[in-house]
């Protein structure tokens, strides 16, 4: 927004025939060809409104800086990374932490006004709501210094020479702050008359979550050191490497990561890696990975995010309201309950960065602060499905998304299907009812107690009325979720892959004065899989073995192959399945950011 209050001064300042300082005139975007230079007004804040990474005071598209649209509006970063290795986010101090940190600052400039009258003074300030949220630095040959956001006083000499500035945000957008900042410069004469003013709008880049169809870079998982777990790690690594990523075991026995002397192998639940980005020179998207720590109760293993992930171009955030478990279900706070529906279009609505998928219910809910925080980013509206019927309560217990061949979307929803599992067992029972499942496996005794054999047969499962009852109920809840996903995403049956396994139910006190049946995978939940490209690592289902072949595994291999997907099964029984989790629960993935530029989405 540029207003020349004293036309005479503006003209004298050299705006020539271009009508500098006048925001009327031809639309600078009518012609897609090269822009004609346009002299800036005398009082001018220059920001990278045309998003090409360069400050261009004479560019008409750069001068369109008074709003944030799909085509214009400057961007700056929440400086959530740690470029100087002090294990603090760079936004937590008032210095620029080296050359790398300087790259995280978006530039703005008070354009030199060579003919600023003697005695003129200026005040540069940020809008009141944003003042505590952002930090401005003055960049000068003698050094970079923080300046007050509530008012930087400028002398005539400053106005004549121009001022170079950098801006960072201390946070991403919040429910109480939309992340849009108005920077305003007001210049007055020695006598106190206003000589001109200018303002520019900038928006802090959002925190964006990644869907599982994005290319993987690194897959993290706990190293529990024992032989059985090392075998699991090797199996996971096979899939990770096939998917083009690097496996990164976490030393889970590090004292600072243990709780009561025990490791915490639920790596998925501790944090999620997303990213933020802004345009830099050449219009290139500069990406900063950002790890979002889960809003769970203190879990030392989650410190990995701040201890080992936080670093250069790797930010860290931990939004949460309260540690009071009465306000939310702490299990639902885990990030196995936070997924992303890959990009899609439905009618006139387009979601090029996908939509966040979260689980909650009427009686059990995760920390609503996180949900509000994610909604505040504006680019990935949240879809909720009911997961309160599940013991753990996570979306990854019933759905996953995999890049596939064979449908227009390029990805499919994989969904748990007790119905298909039962059908397969019934078909197999016709001639092989005695076939065994879970051979050699035992249920949990928490490592030191008794082993409870798990082996059973197809006939025994199909004759277990309680188990069948529970699975028919589970199927109802899954069908409810599918109704929502079909409605919100426009999925057709062709976009859905049924993944057969059975749940079991157990009775719990509900913490609210009653008791409730909650469900957990009985046959290893193969939908709860690590997705790395078109390779997946599902848990070995240890399904019925007929003629030497696990029919559940064989089914998945055959059906996945038709979709161009290769499963690499991992034995997750001892350390995950019988402790209420599977492979996805035990892994976490750093992915390449999509090429989609969030600032072009109009959200």
């Amino acid at each position: 927004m540029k207003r020349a209050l004293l036309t005479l001064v503006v003209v004298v300042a050299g705006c020539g025939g271009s009508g500098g300082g006048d925001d009327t005139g031809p639309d600078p975007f009518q012609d897609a060809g090269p822009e004609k230079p346009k002299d800036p007004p005398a009082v001018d804040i220059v920001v990278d409104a045309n998003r090409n990474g360069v400050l261009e005071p004479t560019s008409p598209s750069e001068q369109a800086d008074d709003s944030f649209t799909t085509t214009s509006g400057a961007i700056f970063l929440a400086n959530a990374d740690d470029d100087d290795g002090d294990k603090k986010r760079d936004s937590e101090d008032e210095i620029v932490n080296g050359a790398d940190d300087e790259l995280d600052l978006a530039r703005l400039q008070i354009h030199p006004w060579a003919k600023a009258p003697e005695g003129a003074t200026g005040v540069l300030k940020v809008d009141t709501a944003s003042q505590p949220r952002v930090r401005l630095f003055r960049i000068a040959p003698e050094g970079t210094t923080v300046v007050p956001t509530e008012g930087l006083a400028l002398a005539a000499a400053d106005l004549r020479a121009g001022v170079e500035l950098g801006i960072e945000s201390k946070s991403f957008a919040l429910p109480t702050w939309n992340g849009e900042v108005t920077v305003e410069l007001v210049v007055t004469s020695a006598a106190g008359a206003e000589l001109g003013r200018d303002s520019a709008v900038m928006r802090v880049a959002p925190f964006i979550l990644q869907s599982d169809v994005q290319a993987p870079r690194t897959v993290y998982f706990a190293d529990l050191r024992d032989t059985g777990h090392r075998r699991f790690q090797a199996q996971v690594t096979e899939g990770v490497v096939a998917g083009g990523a690097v496996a990164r075991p976490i030393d889970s026995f590090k004292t600072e990561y243990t709780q009561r002397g025990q490791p915490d192998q639920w790596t998925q639940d501790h944090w999620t890696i997303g990213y933020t980005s802004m345009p830099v020179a050449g219009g290139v998207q500069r990406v900063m990975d950002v790890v979002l720590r889960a809003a769970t109760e203190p879990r030392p293993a989650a410190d990995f995010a701040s201890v080992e992930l936080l670093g250069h171009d790797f930010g860290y955030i931990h939004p949460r309201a309260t540690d009071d478990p009465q306000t939310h279900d702490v299990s639902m706070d885990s990030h196995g309950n936070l997924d992303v529906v890959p990009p899609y279009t439905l009618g006139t609505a387009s979601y090029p960065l996908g939509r966040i998928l979260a689980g909650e219910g009427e009686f059990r809910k995760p920390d609503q602060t996180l949900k509000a925080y994610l909604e505040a980013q504006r680019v990935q509206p949240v879809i909720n499905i009911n997961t309160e019927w599940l013991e753990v309560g996570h979306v990854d217990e019933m759905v996953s998304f995999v890049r596939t061949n064979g449908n227009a979307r390029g990805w499919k929803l994989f969904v748990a299907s007790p119905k298909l599992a039962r059908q397969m067992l019934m078909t197999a029972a016709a001639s092989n009812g005695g076939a065994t499942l879970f051979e050699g496996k035992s249920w949990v005794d928490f490592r030191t107690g008794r082993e409870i054999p798990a082996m059973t047969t197809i006939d025994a499962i199909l004759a277990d009325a309680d188990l069948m009852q529970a699975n028919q109920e589970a199927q109802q809840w899954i069908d409810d979720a599918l109704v929502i996903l079909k409605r919100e995403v426009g999925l057709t049956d062709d976009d859905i892959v049924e993944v057969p396994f059975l749940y079991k139910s157990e009775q719990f006190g509900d913490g609210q004065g009653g008791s409730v049946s909650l469900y957990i995978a009985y046959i290893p939940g193969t939908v709860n899989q690590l997705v790395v490209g078109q390779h997946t690592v599902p848990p070995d289902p240890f399904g019925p073995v007929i003629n030497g072949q696990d029919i559940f595994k064989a089914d998945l291999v055959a059906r996945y192959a038709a979709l161009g997907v290769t499963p690499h099964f991992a034995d997750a029984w001892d350390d995950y399945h019988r402790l209420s989790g599977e492979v996805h629960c035990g892994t976490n993935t750093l992915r390449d950011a999509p090429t989609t530029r969030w600032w072009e989405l109009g959200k």
Partner: protein
Amino acid sequence: MTKPSKLMMMKSATLALCLGVAGAAWADGAGQVTTPADLAPAAARSLKEGIAAARKADPGAFAALAAVRGYRPEAYMTTRARKPNLAPELAGLGKRGLWPMLEALTEGLPGAGAVSAAEQQAIEVGLLDAVGKLGDARAEAVLAVAFSKAGQPGHVVATAALGLGRLCSGELDAALTGKRGAFAASAALRGVGECRRPASIDRLTTAVSSRSFSDAEVQAAAEALGKLGGSWALDAEVAAGTRLRAEADAMKAAAGQALTALERAAGRRAATATVRALRHARAMVSAK
């Protein structure tokens, strides 16, 4: 999964909180939901004799129960849900767990020591549920007192009702009338759903037609009908040879009719959770 109304839950939660705090101070008393003194003399005597005989015949079963660890933080904090849960271990005890678990319900779980309110709740729910699932009539007296004794926390009432339902016990009948309040009635309705007999559908039908139900009661009745007429469970029983196909089909049909009456009774005032419970039940009794 359906739940009682929020108001009822708040009341119950208050009660549970009070009892939970008190319970946390019990040394070696966790799991105790009643005492032999609450039982009728004959039942108390049978209990005492049963426990003594079992201890002599199978002392290992008592030791195994004492070794259960699912309520201990060092155990359940390793699980993904991080909730105390005894179900897998207690199920693993099998039938030999009956007398040790009845003893724990009347004397407290040996070795438990001081536990948190959540852990105590898990012990109580775990023991009651595991005992109920054994379907052994010798547990009825303890379950009945657990269900009906004044001042019991809601989770005890609700879980004991499921066990009584497994036994097709008449101890639920009084609560079905609503005279013990909507919470106990809901618990009893769910309990009836555990008694897989045609007569259970009649009991529910009678209850539905006898009075006006609260939303929570409609939810509970719908769940129960879904269980009784659920095609997968009935097919399982046919597969197991414990029910004839014709009887299974008749139960499905009867449950469907009872559900129609329940849907009519619920009318348009039903809450979201009630509508969902009715929809789930309808799907279950309609499935082939």
